C-alpha cells in the first residue's frame, strides 16, 4: 500500500471468491442450464402445491373437468346452455366495432383538446369534461346506464337496438376517454421543430398534422394503444350483464345450469387465445418499425 489508502485490496486481488466472472464465462450454456433447472423447480413446486392441497380433487373437478369443459365449449341449447366458443364470436365482433370507433372518436377528442384556436374553446372544455367523466365512472356502470337507460327512453330507432349495440356504445364512450389521453401524449411527444419544418415548406396546418405529426405520434404510442386494446378485448365480457350471450355470460349460464365452473376455464382460455396473439403482434410491430428505421431499408 504505497499510497496508503484505506488498506483495501489492490487491483488484481478483486477475484477472491474463486467463482470466476459472473454470468459471462461458461457462456450462454451455463446460464441456459441454470434457468431451465430453476423454471422446472418453480413449476414443479406450484403443481405440487396445487395437487397436494386438501381440496385439490374437488377444485380439479369443479374447474378443470375435461368433459365439462368440452360440453361448455360446444354448448347444448336443449339442455339450457350455449356454446362458449360460439359466444366468443360476439366478443370478437363487439371488440372490432368498438376498436374502430374508439380510434376515431379518441383522435377527435385529443385534437380538440390540443387545439389552440379561441373558436374551439367551448369544445376544449367539453372534451375535458368528457374525459374526466368517463375515466372516473366505472365501465360497468356506464354499460348498465346505457344498456338499460337508453331502451327505457323508448325513442324511435335509438331505443330499439340489440343489447350488444348498447354494450359497444358504452365501451366506446369509456375507452375513448382513455385512448384520447394516449393520443394526446403521442401528439405532444412530436417535437415542435417538426411542425416548424413542415410549415416552413408551405404545408398547411392540416397537411402538417396528417403527414408529419400524426404518423410520428401514433408510432410513439403503439404500445400503450395496443395495451388498451388488449384490455378492451377482455372488457367486452362485461356486456354480459345486459344479457348478451357473450363468452363470459355463456360460461355463467353453463355453470348455473350444470353446477360446474369448468365453463369459466374455457372462457378464460379463449380470452387468452385472443389476447396473446395481439400482444405478440404488438411486439412485432414495434420491432419492425425500429429495425426499419435503423437499417434504412427500402420503404
Amino acid at each position: 500500500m504505497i499510497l496508503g489508502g484505506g488498506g483495501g485490496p489492490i487491483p488484481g486481488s478483486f477475484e477472491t471468491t474463486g467463482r470466476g466472472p459472473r454470468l459471462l464465462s461458461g457462456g450462454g450454456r451455463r446460464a441456459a442450464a441454470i434457468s431451465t433447472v430453476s423454471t422446472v423447480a418453480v413449476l414443479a413446486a406450484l403443481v405440487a402445491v396445487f395437487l397436494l392441497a386438501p381440496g385439490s380433487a374437488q377444485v380439479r373437478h369443479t374447474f378443470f373437468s375435461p368433459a365439462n369443459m368440452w360440453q361448455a365449449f360446444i354448448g347444448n341449447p336443449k339442455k339450457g346452455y350455449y356454446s362458449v366458443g360460439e359466444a366468443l364470436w360476439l366478443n370478437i365482433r363487439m371488440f372490432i366495432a368498438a376498436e374502430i370507433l374508439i380510434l376515431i372518436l379518441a383522435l377527435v377528442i385529443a385534437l380538440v383538446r390540443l387545439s389552440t384556436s379561441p373558436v374551439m374553446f367551448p369544445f376544449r372544455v367539453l372534451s375535458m369534461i368528457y374525459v374526466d367523466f368517463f375515466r372516473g365512472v366505472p365501465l360497468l356502470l356506464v354499460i348498465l346506464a346505457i344498456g338499460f337507460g337508453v331502451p327505457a327512453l323508448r325513442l324511435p330507432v335509438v331505443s330499439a337496438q340489440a343489447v350488444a349495440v348498447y354494450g359497444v356504445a358504452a365501451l366506446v364512450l369509456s375507452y375513448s376517454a382513455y385512448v384520447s389521453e394516449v393520443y394526446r401524449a403521442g401528439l405532444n411527444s412530436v417535437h415542435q421543430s417538426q411542425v416548424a419544418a413542415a410549415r416552413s415548406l408551405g404545408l398547411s396546418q392540416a397537411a402538417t398534422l396528417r403527414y408529419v405529426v400524426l404518423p410520428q405520434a401514433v408510432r410513439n404510442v403503439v404500445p400503450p394503444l395496443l395495451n388498451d386494446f388488449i384490455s378492451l378485448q377482455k372488457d367486452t365480457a362485461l356486456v354480459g350483464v345486459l344479457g348478451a350471450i357473450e363468452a363470459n355470460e355463456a360460461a355463467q349460464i353453463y355453470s348455473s345450469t350444470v353446477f360446474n365452473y369448468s365453463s369459466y376455464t374455457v372462457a378464460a382460455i379463449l380470452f387468452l387465445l385472443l389476447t396473446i396473439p395481439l400482444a405478440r403482434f404488438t411486439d412485432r410491430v414495434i420491432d419492425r418499425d425500429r429495425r426499419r428505421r435503423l437499417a434504412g431499408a427500402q420503404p
Partner: protein
Amino acid sequence: MTAPEAGPGARPPAEGEAIRIEGLRKSFGAHEVLRGIDLSVATHEVICLIGASGSGKSTLLRCLNLLEPIDAGRISLWGQEITGAEVDPNLVRKYIGIVFQSFNLFPHMTVLRNITLAPVKARGVSRAQAEQEARALLDRFGLLDRQSDYPDRLSGGQQQRVAIVRALAMRPQIMLLDEVTSALVLDVIRELAAGGMTMLIATHEMGFARDIANRVCFLAEGAIIEDAPPSVLFTDPKDERTRRFLRRIVDAGRL
C-alpha cells in the same frame, strides 16, 4: 447552375430589393431577443449573420419565414409587406426556403419522401414529377444513393444537405440557412450563391463568411451592430463590440 424558378402563381421580380426589414422587434416572454432590426437585402445578394450564440440570428431567420409572430416592425418581400394580418403565410413560404440548425428532417420518411412531400402536397406537383425533380437535386448534391434511406442513417453533413435539397425542391427565391458547418454543405452553398440565389446565412464559420458573403452583419444583443462587406468588417471593424467578438474568434483559431 441557374436559380430555381418560382412556382406557379405571381412571380416576384428577380431584381431590386428582395427583403426589407424595418424596426423588427421580437420578445419571448420578458426577454427581448430582437431589438429593432433594420436590414435591406438585394436580389442575388448573400448576407452572412455572425454573432455569439443568443444574439438573435436564428430568431431573425425564423421571423423572416413567419414562423415567429413579430411584436413590432415590418418585413417586406419585393416591396410587399408580409407581416400584415391578411397575408397567407403558406404563400410567403413558397418563396422563402429555410434550413434549420437541427435540420428537422422527418424521421418517419425516406430521404426521397422528405423532399417530395411539400412539392406534392403544397405545390400540387404530381408525385412522379416531384420524384424526378428530387432525384435530380439529390444527384447534384451527391446524395442519390441515399434516396431510400431514413434520416437516422445519414451523417450530420448528409442530413444538412438533404434539408437544403428539401427546401430547394419548393423552388424558393430566397434561402435562409441557420448555422451551416460541414465542408460539403459549404460547397453546396457556394454553388447556390454562384447561381444567384438570394441568401441569408447565420454562421460561425468566419472563413466561409469572408469567402462567400457580399455583406456581413454582426449581431449582438438583438441588434445589428455592424453591417459591412467582409473585406471591411473582418479587417477594419468600426465598433468595439465587433472587434472584441472577432478577437475571441481569432484566439479560438477559427479565423
